């Protein structure tokens, strides 16, 4: 069984996003970039499944300009077997529907039975790509998973989903797509020898133009602005009595 792990290169999540007033876009020039944290969790889960002997191969896929190769190398250094790089040449505003269509092509070509991916990327926060991919392929889908267990016959998987009302457990028939939540696992770090080894692992490049997909933006970004968290004029209180009386005055008790 092959596992595909689509991953995304994003602004380092511990870096503050800033707007470039001229371009009216988030400024990524010289910014520190990293693998989307949810994608790291997806990579880790795929590696664990392979280590348990239930998968034959793990394949990371990413789409973007050449810099995206760095992120694929990180996945290879973590232990993924090979990588597929879809080269966009330019910085395109690709959206989940476009990404879903590209991934659907790759999943079919590889005949992968399992696709493990992050539930959302922490840049655009769409939380859509896994769902869209499942719709395009008509595969079973488990979103927001915090637990993953393959059946003994390898034909299905049992997943726990973190949903608003609690934890839902479902059985998904393979082929399946799962999108991972934070508590599924703790991703490993790549060791130095593995980083060296990753350089010689196979990395295939596919030009985006080789897919017959309309990549014009469906949703256009008109403008962006920093909203962030505004500092408030904090007033100090010293006791419970103090606090409760302030809250009464503010009318929120």
């Amino acid at each position, binding site marked *: 069984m092959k596992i595909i792990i689509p991953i995304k290169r994003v602004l380092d999540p511990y870096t503050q996003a800033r707007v470039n007033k001229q371009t009216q876009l988030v400024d990524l020039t010289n910014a520190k970039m990293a693998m989307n944290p949810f994608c790291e969790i997806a990579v880790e889960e795929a590696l664990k499944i392979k280590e348990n002997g239930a998968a034959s191969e793990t394949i990371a896929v990413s789409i973007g300009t050449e810099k995206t190769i760095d992120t694929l190398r990180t996945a290879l250094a973590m232990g993924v077997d090979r990588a597929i790089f879809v080269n966009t040449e330019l910085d395109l505003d690709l959206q989940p529907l476009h990404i879903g269509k590209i991934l659907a092509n790759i999943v079919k070509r590889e005949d992968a039975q399992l696709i493990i991916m992050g539930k959302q990327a922490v840049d655009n926060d769409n939380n859509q790509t896994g769902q869209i991919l499942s719709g395009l392929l008509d595969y079973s889908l488990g979103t927001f998973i915090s637990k993953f267990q393959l059946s003994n016959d390898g034909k299905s998987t049992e997943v726990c989903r973190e949903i608003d009302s609690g*934890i839902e457990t479902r059985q998904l028939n393979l082929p399946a797509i799962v999108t991972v939540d934070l508590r599924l696992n703790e991703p490993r770090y790549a060791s130095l020898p593995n980083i060296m080894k990753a350089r010689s692992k196979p990395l295939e490049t596919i030009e985006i133009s080789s897919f017959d997909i309309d990549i014009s933006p469906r949703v256009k970004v008109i403008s962006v602005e920093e909203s962030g968290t505004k500092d*408030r004029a904090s007033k100090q209180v010293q006791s419970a009595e103090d606090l409760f009386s302030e809250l009464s005055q503010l009318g929120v008790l």
Partner: protein
Amino acid sequence: MSVLILIELNGSEVSSNSRAAITAATQLSDKIDALVLTDDSANAASVASLDSINTVKVIADSKLEHVSVGVASKLVAEVMAEYKYLLSGSSTYSKNILPRVGALLDVQPISDVCEIKSNNTFVRPLYAGNIMATVESNDNTILMTVRATAFEHSGDGGSATIEELSLPIPEQKSNFISLQESQSERPELTTADRIVSGGRGLGSKENFALIEQLADKLDAAVGASRAAVDAGFISNDYQVGQTGKVVAPKLYLAVGISGAIQHLAGMKDSQVIVVINNDPDAPMARMADLVWETDLFGALQELNDHSL
């Protein structure tokens, strides 16, 4: 230019995020219908009495209890043929279904809409709400989830027509096994007027009970930071933040929370923010209206003992 609202039910009750979606819909059109997928058509009654809804379309079938997203999205896509917009309140329910409907209709959905600027222009958060983007959809059909904290929750008083649709239910590829529901007598986190939220500073599950005690005293909901959830003090459905729940209560009382950017994104629109912490330099403290810089256990004790 008609709107279909995908209604999320909690039992037979309409969820508050669906009510927010109705308010958002009224800014787009006055032709608003609702769609309910349920195992029991009796559940449609509460939907019919919602304000602003013309027709409630009901697909009722015993197979729809805990239905798979694959089946749900096919049914929604089929009903969508007659509509320009599909709206639903942002929740794990709609975030699961709507993008898959988008794939079936070849539409790029828009997540977490906070403001409607025109019939195709919307404002939505990026980067955990640190950036707000104004986006324009070029699709003929527009699918969106809306933030329940950004729109008023529409009330009752309407009398919509109920129309039962008999669509064949496709075969599902995933089966429901169980739902471990969190039981709580307290107000629901996303709609509560007051929230008492605890972080890693609480140190243990036992100590977290002090947060629950204070919440009960204030008739508040309980919230938690990701660190507190990861540490096992409380279950995931209490998590406030970018990947948890987005809240905007009248009072947000944060105890032992340092204020990771992802947490702040989930509560920054609260009306009054109170921080109890021993670290005056924590990012959380800068957002506070009231700060009590002290040992948090002593503070919780004093608050719990103080008679209101």
